[in-house]
């Protein structure tokens, strides 16, 4: 009998939650890209961790200054040249970033359109504290008629000019993704293979948290707490575009910052879009494009942009998911959900 009791005791002891001690987790927070950037590193020497975080801090600050949408910097210089139709010389990184953006814009039917910087500025979102009133319809229509697109850009070796002087670049819809990709590259160059870089809520995770995957919560678009959970191991980015991120209220009407390049107005009918994809730049751009595409058209955009795992929450709080996404995420709250194959 004593053996029986001993077995029970051993089994009960074995029922303890299996988890890794968090003393191997190095967590830091930076102020960069105009937001909070959280960096989690697993099982990394303290000195190496500090050096890597300093490297990322420096990299992000430079990137933010370089590509800021409305303050003087390199993007400002590029936009000045594009407005005059003159050539401007690009370095390798600038060329790679803009060519990648052009490719993503084409895949998204121009719903992701970084060439509409002037329209975004017209809506008042080239400001730390955007406010109304919204622009007059006539001004919006005038800009739409000029039809600025990434396909207006002409790349010739390392030179760039625009065939359309209405093109003004605003890389806000994918800059965070690009910066996170660069940060992950830096970590890997320093031999760090288990990490999360989370910039203002969008993240890329590599490796694992010790013996288990990284556990990510996806925030509810209208309430505190999470709506879904997903485990990540290997290398994946989780990006969400939401109508709650930047907006202003004017005379009882809310205007969010995600402008539909086809209508010239803020997108409606979508609360948030979450994309899981390998590289953060694509995930960032795809989340924006699918948000604009809305509940009717998002599946086609997902397919065209090579996105298999995506979730859209519409303004009735119905959750739409691709089948691949449904297999990955665990919904945490009772919501009406629809699993849909990309068309």
């Amino acid at each position, binding site marked *: *009998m*004593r053996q029986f*009791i001993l077995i*029970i005791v051993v089994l*009960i002891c074995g029922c*303890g*939650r299996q*988890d890794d001690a968090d003393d191997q987790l190095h967590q830091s*927070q*930076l*102020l960069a890209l105009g*937001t*909070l950037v*959280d960096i*989690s590193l697993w099982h990394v020497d303290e000195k190496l961790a500090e050096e890597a975080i300093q490297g990322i801090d420096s990299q992000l600050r430079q990137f933010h200054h370089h590509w800021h949408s409305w303050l003087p910097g390199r993007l400002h210089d590029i936009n000045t040249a594009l407005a005059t139709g003159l050539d401007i010389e690009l370095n390798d990184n600038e060329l790679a970033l803009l060519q990648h953006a052009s490719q993503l814009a084409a895949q998204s039917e121009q719903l992701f359109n970084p060439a509409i910087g002037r329209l975004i500025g017209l809506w008042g979102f080239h400001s*730390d*504290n955007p*406010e109304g009133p919204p622009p007059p319809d006539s001004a919006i229509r005038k800009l739409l008629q000029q039809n600025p697109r990434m396909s207006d850009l002409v790349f010739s070796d390392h030179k760039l000019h625009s065939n359309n002087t209405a093109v003004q670049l605003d890389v806000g819809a994918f800059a965070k993704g690009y910066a996170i990709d660069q940060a992950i590259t830096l970590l890997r160059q320093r031999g760090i293979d288990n990490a*999360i870089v*989370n910039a*203002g*809520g*969008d*993240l890329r*995770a590599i490796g694992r*948290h010790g013996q288990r995957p*990284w*556990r*990510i*919560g*996806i*925030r509810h678009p209208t309430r*505190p*707490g*999470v709506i879904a*959970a997903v485990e990540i191991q290997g290398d994946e980015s*989780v*990006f*969400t575009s*939401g109508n*709650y991120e930047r*907006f*202003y*209220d004017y005379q009882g009407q809310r205007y969010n910052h995600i402008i539909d390049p086809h209508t010239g107005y803020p997108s409606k009918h979508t609360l948030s879009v*979450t994309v899981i994809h390998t590289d953060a730049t694509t995930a960032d751009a795809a989340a924006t494009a699918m948000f604009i595409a809305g509940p009717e058209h998002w599946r086609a955009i997902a397919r065209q942009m090579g996105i298999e795992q995506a979730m859209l929450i519409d303004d009735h709080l119905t959750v739409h998911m691709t089948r691949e996404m449904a297999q990955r995420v665990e919904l945490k709250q009772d919501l009406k959900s629809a699993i849909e194959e990309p068309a």
Partner: protein
Amino acid sequence: MIKTINSPGLFTKADIVIICAALLVLPLLYTQFWGNGSQGEIARVQVAGHEPLQIPLQRSQRYTIKGPLGASIIEVDEGRIRFVSSPCRNKLCIHSGWLQHDADFAACLPNLISITVSGRNPRFDSINF
């Protein structure tokens, strides 16, 4: 001749006492290690560029946290925490209301202050929003 053997019963008295004691202790152990796992116990308040504050949710208190735009006031009451005031425009952080469960999260991004509630065993390594 029939020989009877007094074989011992399945349980001795001592065994029964131990099993009963174990059964009595089980609910306590369950509550301790598994029960109410989603209830938050600590809030991690972060201001960019500073060490995070670990605030226990058991002690009711108000905290004034300075961010780049000015002071945000955070209140803890009966196991919950919330932004009471903040110098941002849209007041999204205040509208988030009370946070009390593991992984509940609110941020005043303009003032670069975030609150993340953690339970005994945090469910998430990072929050996407």
